[in-house]
């Protein structure tokens, strides 16, 4: 047990870096392409004459003019002004993992980076073999019959599912009737939002006393209008709905499809299978659970798998195998077509394949164990900190791979909020934690997820920092409320961000609204 660990004297790099638009000098170049060969120029004449006269660009774009080393240094400075998981990042619902450098090196090879998705399939056999074999691995993990990787993230996989839902019910002549999708308030907002964007009415179930919606609430919600259920389990409070099989039966009896949003797969991988629980489809986030990098928000992959019954509707092309090798099968008359161009963020899929090969079945099972151990270890220590409580404290069973906590008591006692605490923790090199999705069911929430990568020492450090900041909230609340103090910049002013007279999403807008330095 820690508690006396020395907190690091951390300070972020401060470069006071200007916006790139302010840098450089007219005439400088970061890259040159040169001129076309003489014979080419002679053959076609001046380039601008090849553009229809009224379509030529007259005024050049007001981009910065820098030399290559200036550009490199500027962006290296910006990278250094990014904490970016260099500390301890327990960003709940995102499952932070080590991103293998081997995988980056493999993905940078020309067979991956410089390959084109429209190459003939005979020239893509290695890539297709990897994707097919990874599909088989995901089938084994999920009990589904076919995976595709086109969706560019978890939300895109949810959108894939609602498109599949439309196609499925349309094929049965029931789409006009089935205009409702059921989800829960603890499901990721993208489930509700993609359903609405696809044209469905959204029925949101609220939580019952056990931390998940009551079965009776579900029964009251489903009807002949139900198109699908979109649900996660466990949710991001770490609560597992033990009635989920019954949920699936109820929705199926009503004629709806069941989609398992496996965003919180880490604690249950190797422990259960979506297919065996009765689900028709599920989604894995390869950029979290399967070790591919998150990259600040993509490129990501929402690997989407479904039952054989739904497979004809999958977005194409689907990778298949026969005695001639691997194929990109796009001759699928019932397919929904594309949710995104081409067949996915292939480098990320290869990284995820590599991760599963490095882990093996036993490694994946152990990772699930360790992530649940780590969360329960953290829970014990965190709840010992005055001012920290957890959601649904009356539920005594062990939470899964994360727990939703609240700083409500601390806020009531000190005025320091959860956002203040997150801002102060970064002063100790601890990446900002995840709060909770909207709406906050728990006041002043925070949701750390330790995963299997971080050591006990890392977790102890994280907890010690939180305990220290909570203590500061009582002894010196101003230092917390005005944080950060050791970061690349001070606390930002949020008010201009919501003011149409002041917000500026580009430098052009900024200069127009604020005068700004002359170009």
């Amino acid at each position, binding site marked *: 047990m820690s508690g006396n660990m020395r907190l690091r004297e951390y300070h972020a790099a401060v470069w006071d870096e200007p916006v790139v638009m302010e840098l450089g000098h007219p005439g400088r*170049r970061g890259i040159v392409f040169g001129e*076309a060969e003489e014979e*080419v120029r002679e053959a076609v004449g001046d380039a*601008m004459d090849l*553009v*229809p006269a009224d379509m030529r660009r007259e005024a050049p*774009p*007001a981009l910065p003019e820098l030399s290559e080393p200036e550009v490199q240094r500027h*962006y290296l400075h910006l*990278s250094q002004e*990014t*904490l*970016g998981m260099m500390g301890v990042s327990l960003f709940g619902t*995102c499952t932070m993992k080590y*991103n293998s450098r081997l995988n*980056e090196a493999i*993905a*940078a090879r020309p067979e991956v980076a*410089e*390959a084109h998705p429209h*190459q*003939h399939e005979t020239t893509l056999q290695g*890539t297709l073999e990897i994707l097919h074999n990874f599909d088989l691995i995901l089938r084994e*993990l999920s009990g589904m019959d076919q995976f595709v990787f086109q969706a*560019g993230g978890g*939300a895109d996989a949810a*959108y894939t599912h609602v498109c599949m839902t439309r196609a499925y019910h349309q094929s049965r002549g029931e*789409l006009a009737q089935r205009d409702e999708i059921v989800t829960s308030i603890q499901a990721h*907002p993208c489930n509700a*939002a993609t359903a609405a964007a696809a*044209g469905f009415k959204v029925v949101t179930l609220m939580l019952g006393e056990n931390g998940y919606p009551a079965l009776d609430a579900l029964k009251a919600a489903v009807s002949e209008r139900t198109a699908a259920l979109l649900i996660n389990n466990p949710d991001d409070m770490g609560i*597992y709905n*033990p009635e989920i099989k019954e949920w699936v039966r109820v929705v199926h009896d009503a004629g709806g499809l069941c989609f398992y949003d496996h965003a919180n797969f880490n604690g249950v991988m*190797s422990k259960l299978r979506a297919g065996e629980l009765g689900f028709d489809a599920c989604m894995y986030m390869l950029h979290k659970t399967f070790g591919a990098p998150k*990259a600040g928000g*993509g*490129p990501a992959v929402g690997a989407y798998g479904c039952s054989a019954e739904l497979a004809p509707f999958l977005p194409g092309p689907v990778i298949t195998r026969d005695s001639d090798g691997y194929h990109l099968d796009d001759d699928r008359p019932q397919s929904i077509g*594309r949710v*995104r*161009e081409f067949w996915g963020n*292939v480098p990320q899929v290869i990284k995820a394949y590599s991760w599963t090969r*490095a882990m*093996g079945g*036993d490694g994946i099972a152990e990772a699930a*164990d360790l992530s649940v*151990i780590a969360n*329960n270890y953290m829970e*014990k220590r965190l709840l010992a900190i005055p001012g920290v409580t957890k959601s649904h404290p009356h539920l005594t069973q*062990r939470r899964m791979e994360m727990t939703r906590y609240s700083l409500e008591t601390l806020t009531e006692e000190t005025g320091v909020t959860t956002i203040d605490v997150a801002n102060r923790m970064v002063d100790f090199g601890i990446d900002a934690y995840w709060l909770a999705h909207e709406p906050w069911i728990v006041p002043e929430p925070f949701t750390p997820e330790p995963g299997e990568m971080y050591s006990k020492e*890392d977790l102890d450090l994280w907890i010690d920092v939180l305990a220290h900041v909570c203590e500061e909230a009582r002894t010196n609340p101003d230092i917390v409320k005005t944080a950060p103090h050791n*970061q690349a*910049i*001070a606390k*930002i*002013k949020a008010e201009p961000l919501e003011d*149409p007279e002041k917000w500026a*999403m*580009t*430098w052009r*807008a900024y200069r127009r609204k604020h005068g700004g330095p002359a170009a």
Partner: protein
Amino acid sequence: MANSVADIKQAMLDDIGAKEIEELFEQIPEDHRLKDELRLPKALRSEAELKRHLLDLLSKTGSCEENLSFLGAGCWQHHVPAVCDEITGRAEFLTNVWGSPSSDHGRNQAWFEYCSQIGELVQMDMVGLPVYSYGCAAGHAIRMASRITGRHRVLVPGLSDPERLSVIRNYCEPEEMASHIAVVPIDYDVATGLLDLDDLRAKISDETAAVYFENPSYAGVIERQGAAIAEIARASGAETIVGVDPISLGVIKAPADYGADIVVGTTQPLGVHMNTGGGVGGFIASRDEEKYVREYNTLNISITETEKDGQYGFGLSCAHQTSYGMREKGKDWTGNSTYLWAIAGAVYMSLLGPDGFREVGRLILQRAHYAAAVLARVPGLRIGFPSGFFKEFVVRFDDTGRTVDEVNGRLRERGIFGGKDLSAEFPELGQCALYCITEIHTKGDIDRLANELREVLR
């Protein structure tokens, strides 16, 4: 895994007060549990062994470096400056998650710089963080236009990329849905590839939410009637949405300058490898008017001040209107995207500057037109839309008596990936292929292509 060491694992279990790991899974009913061990391939714990395995597999894939490729059609082989790779490979950018405006300041600034530079290229003040792809950007923009106008029809070019159009259809259809937007193709002129304005006038109405067209078009043609199209759209109260390839914007007029209300486009040409199609990304831009900004589903980064005088900070703007803030009541939907490629784009645009964009644009124009001229002299080949294209053009094979599929197969044996076969997509154009020439194709590459085609077609 740091805590897999036996004594640490035991110590943590002891601290928790659990006798064994199984206790921690007490929430999951017995009949939900997987009974068997996973049947997965044996673990390759050795990095050397794993590397060998991956390399063995990838040796069965051929690249566009080792072959000479003329494939484009939504994913283009451009030069990626080495600095772009260095910056996007930096662990701070590669591994980070959302963070906070102070802790991940540098990344937020890089995102703002990406938006700022896209804004200069397209001449728009409002640029959101990227979405998944060109087609996704078009889909979101069309839905945005539908919300703005309260109308439910969109007119799109008949000569559209089937990939992109399929994405757009998934964002707009089917008609059983309350949110349905009818996707109506507009004819094109078979001689020029340009939009048929008569057909546009015939199909536009007070039900049209938007007219969508691209520059350059899927077939590579510069749509020089942009101002006229925008005028027709405006007269009907419809929004004009223009899709662009930003690498063309050093030489081709910015869409805002011929009447675009919303601009979308691809981000892949700006410093991102093709990545077997995984390099794609899209952007959405518009005027900085609340009418538009309040409809964005993207995450948006605004410059702001900090508590320290004179210091820049960057934070999310208008985030509450997204699904993260309002779930199904938010604007469209929002998720993880391609934000690392935004940083690649920021680096790329900073390296080029105005002169670099002009230079790369000129080089592409000249080499592409040279290629068209050289291929036109190959017996049997004709250029589909012989003037006014940028980097892609249609080559027609009807007079050769061969199919594109057959020709491409023969080229492949000679280390050349021929242009994308359009024959099934646009039967009215006969046997034809879309060839892509960029700054990476030398005169020698183009001459080699022509010579090999001569051989193949002999």
